[in-house]
């Protein structure tokens, strides 16, 4: 039969010596099949090499340095963007005092009596009665002004907390939240 011979012969000729390229990953799968433990070790070793290659690659140094700089910048920006300043003038009566010291206390108590306080900073009050505290975190604070000893102010006024209190237990708390406050302080007369 002509037809029978044609198909058989043609397929026989076509597929004798038929050698298509085998799938790329086939050997790897066979290797895992015959050496399962070594394949596992190989994977771990590959991971180690990749890590070593990554950490020792000189090409990555500029990239890592740039990333570190960016990270540092973000940390500094974040830290400063959440800090505040407190500024104001100190008065003796209606007049700004000339020289003295301003003290900033952190208040840890939520309600009176404010027993738990900590001195954080002290800054000079200038000749125009101006003072300023920088880099203050959110929270509750006291400010106390001490006039320069030996002046008329000290003779007539006593060191005072905001707002016109001589003792911290009676002083008003200054709350620092989202803005930089201006806090003018009036000394208590003797």
């Amino acid at each position, binding site marked *: 039969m*002509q*037809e*029978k011979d*044609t*198909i*058989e*012969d*043609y*397929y*026989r000729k*076509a*597929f*004798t*010596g*038929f*050698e*298509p*390229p*085998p*799938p790329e990953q*086939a*050997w790897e*799968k*066979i*290797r895992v*099949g*015959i*050496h399962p433990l*070594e394949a596992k070790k190989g994977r771990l070793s590959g991971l180690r090499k990749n890590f070593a290659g990554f950490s020792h690659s000189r090409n990555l140094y500029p990239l890592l340095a740039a990333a570190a700089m960016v990270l540092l910048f973000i940390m500094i920006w974040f830290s400063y963007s959440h800090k505040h300043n407190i500024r104001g003038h100190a008065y003796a009566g209606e007049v700004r005092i000339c020289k003295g010291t301003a003290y900033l206390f952190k208040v840890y108590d939520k309600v009176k009596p404010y027993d738990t306080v900590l001195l954080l900073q002290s800054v000079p009050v200038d000749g125009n009665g101006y003072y300023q505290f920088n880099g203050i975190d959110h929270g509750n604070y006291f400010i106390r002004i001490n006039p320069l000893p030996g002046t008329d102010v000290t003779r007539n006024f006593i060191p005072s907390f905001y707002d016109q209190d001589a003792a911290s237990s009676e002083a008003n708390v200054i709350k620092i939240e989202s803005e930089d406050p201006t806090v003018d302080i009036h000394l208590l007369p003797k």
Partner: protein
Amino acid sequence: MTVPAEVLDQCLLNEPRGQEALYKAYSARMYGICLRYAGNRMEAEDILQEGFIKVFKNLSHLHSREALDAWIRRIMVNTAINYYTKQLKFQNEVSLKYDSSDATIQEDALSKLSYNELLRILQGLPTGYRTVFNLYVIDGYSHREIGEMLGIAENTSKSQLWRAKASMKKILRRIL
């Protein structure tokens, strides 16, 4: 095809380097066999992997190094047959009645088909037809041998071959 004696020695010692060399020497030819017996490329890959794992695990049973080619080939064919064992269904009746609305399929017409098209026609056959066609036509087994390998009667093998070719002709007439 011959592989260096040291490659076989390494394989017998279960050394991956030798095993990879043996795989590289035979993988293309064996993949060709798997593609013919399989229904698609994924199944062919499965058969190839399973076959080579059997080769490496049973290499110590090889009696003569000269027979390595035939031995590996036989393992691949058996692996392919076992892969489809559950699917193999054979119709025993031999019908010699030809569906002869048939025009002859000329060799020059067949030559227009690419390997991939020929392979697709073969892979499109039912598993039983495809297996017998491969065993008889391309791998050169006799109907008696096929009967023994597949656990079927010699005549069943003949009828499967006839049905395989009839199916192929139908497909070829449609596409040529």
